[in-house]
């Protein structure tokens, strides 16, 4: 369970996040939807303890990220905006490095890495250096790395960027599998169709505020729009005076 309570964060004069509250429950895929610059990445960074909120609280399984960041990080797997892999290490070494940073004993690290390589269908390239990987291979490796310590909560920042249709399908299957096993999956995107396709819960944010939250159907009903896209446009348009 990932929870944001009235999060606020500004960088100098720029107020990136003004007031963001939502809860992403276990066993559900929650999408954070918003245009570029809406405050999605900043919100995720506060949830992943990389940034400290100015006010409000971020909770991972009820653990406040500010009072116990290390415990919060153990309960959380993060796939950042850039996959951020080490080009001179192999995919497997990238995974093992993070397992070691998570303090897992060696036999467990090896077992877990093999398990993930199997699950994510990475055998072909697991022992190759990351330099020269395709975007899909990178995402898989980064995802395996984020999942290596078996976190209950998974957060992905625009994971579908640069993926082809097949890779997106694979990612969806994987996220569904995580949801079915009771994980809390939170991911951000600015692509409406993706959110509609993947998520059961949607949080629409723009200008650093939550505009709407709920199932896609609920949001459609609330805005009186026939499609989620129209609902999205009407919400964002209201918020930013775009239309």
């Amino acid at each position: 369970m990932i929870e944001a309570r009235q999060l606020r964060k500004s960088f100098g004069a720029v107020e990136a996040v003004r007031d963001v509250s939502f809860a992403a429950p276990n066993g559900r895929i929650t999408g954070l939807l918003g245009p570029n610059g809406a405050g999605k990445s900043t919100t995720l960074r506060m949830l992943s303890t990389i940034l400290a909120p100015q006010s409000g609280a971020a909770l991972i399984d009820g653990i406040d990220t500010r009072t116990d960041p290390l415990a919060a990080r153990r309960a959380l797997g993060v796939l950042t905006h850039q996959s951020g892999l080490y080009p001179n290490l192999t995919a497997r070494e990238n995974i093992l490095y993070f397992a070691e940073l998570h303090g897992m004993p060696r036999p467990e690290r090896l077992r877990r890495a093999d398990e993930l390589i199997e699950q994510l269908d990475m055998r072909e390239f697991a022992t190759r250096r990351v330099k020269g990987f395709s975007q899909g291979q990178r995402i898989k490796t980064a995802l395996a790395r984020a999942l290596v310590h078996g976190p209950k909560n998974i957060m992905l920042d625009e994971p579908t960027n640069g993926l082809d249709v097949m890779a997106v399908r694979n990612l969806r299957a994987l996220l569904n599998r995580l949801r079915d096993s009771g994980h809390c999956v939170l991911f951000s995107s600015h692509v409406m169709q993706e959110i509609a396709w993947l998520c059961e819960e949607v949080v629409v944010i723009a200008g650093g505020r939550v505009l709407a939250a709920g199932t896609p159907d609920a949001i459609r009903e609330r805005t009186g729009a026939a499609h989620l896209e129209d609902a999205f446009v009407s919400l964002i348009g209201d918020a930013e005076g775009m239309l």
Partner: protein
Amino acid sequence: MRAIWTVFRKEFLENLRDRRTLTTALLLGPVFGPLMLSGLLQFVAQREQERLDKPLPVAVVHAERAPNLLTYLKGYGVEVTEVKLSDEAAQNAVESRQHRLVLVIPEDFGSRLAEQSPAPVYLYYDAASLDDARSLRRLSSLVSKYGQTIAQLRLAARGVDPGVIAPIVVQGIDVSTPRSRAETVLGMLSYIVMFAMLLGGMYLAIDATAGERERGSLEPLLTTPIARAHIVYGKILASCAFMLISLVLTLSTTALALSYIKLDGAGIAVDFSPSVVLHMIATTAPFIPLGAGLMTLIASFTRSYREAQSWLGIAMLVPTLPLAIASVLGLKPSLATMAIPSLSQHFQLMAALRGETLPLSWMLLSAGVCLLAGFFICWIVSRLYQREAILG
């Protein structure tokens, strides 16, 4: 602590696979510096050899016509070989390098000398050969000196002071000794060692900070449950390891290169035995944490790999500044100068070369100041990593 070790191992391994890091750490510093140094020393040693009077072999035709001249020449190390050659044969002998120099005394040499009119001698040589040109200069200056002596005697016989034909005499006094000449060159060792050491850790310092941020791998790293300070210490330690490797390699290759140069013949004695090398490593190594910390600090402030590279290029000159200033001011090792990092390393390197031992308290002061400064810088870097701006 385990996290520091984990980060260290990964950074070390990853950079061992990076060609740029490897070539600068293992090749650029440790090979080119010592090669340059030993090349220069070889040059100095050669010059020393030439300063020593080597016997100068000269073939003389009709030596019997100028016995006094030949006695004079023999007195100055000329090895006279009496030969019987026609003018043409003399020329051929030089061309074919059978003789380097052939001095021909003409028949009227004695009579012209007695008449006090200019008496020519003929000297065959090959100007195309540099070596012979040097011998030629030596021989002709000896012959003209002999002529000057005769001129002075003639003036004296006429009651004229021989000094009148020598209004100005330049007397060069070379106060350098072979050892001091060699030391000027060996003083470069400090620069070479410093540069090689800093170069060794430079790319790792950049890669671990600006590089990690640019690649976007810093953010995932910061989501792992380890303290940011430990990440920083692991990275700095990996930089230190590469610097140490560079240091050991540089001094070892220098010792190896110098062992191939014959310095004894030139009167230069340099002790580069394994124990001296070990001593040098021990006195220079305390600078490593300071150097690694400084490079990591600077690289942490930059926005990109390229920016870090250009800033560090400039920063690498900073540790050589005390060396340059000290040599301009002619500073000598003292308790006070031992508190200046890099300068104290320079003095200790030079002392080790000369086989001198500095007081133990000086060595401890040098190591202590360097290590303290190094730890302080590393602590500052770890504080820097607590800031949110580190994400760029």
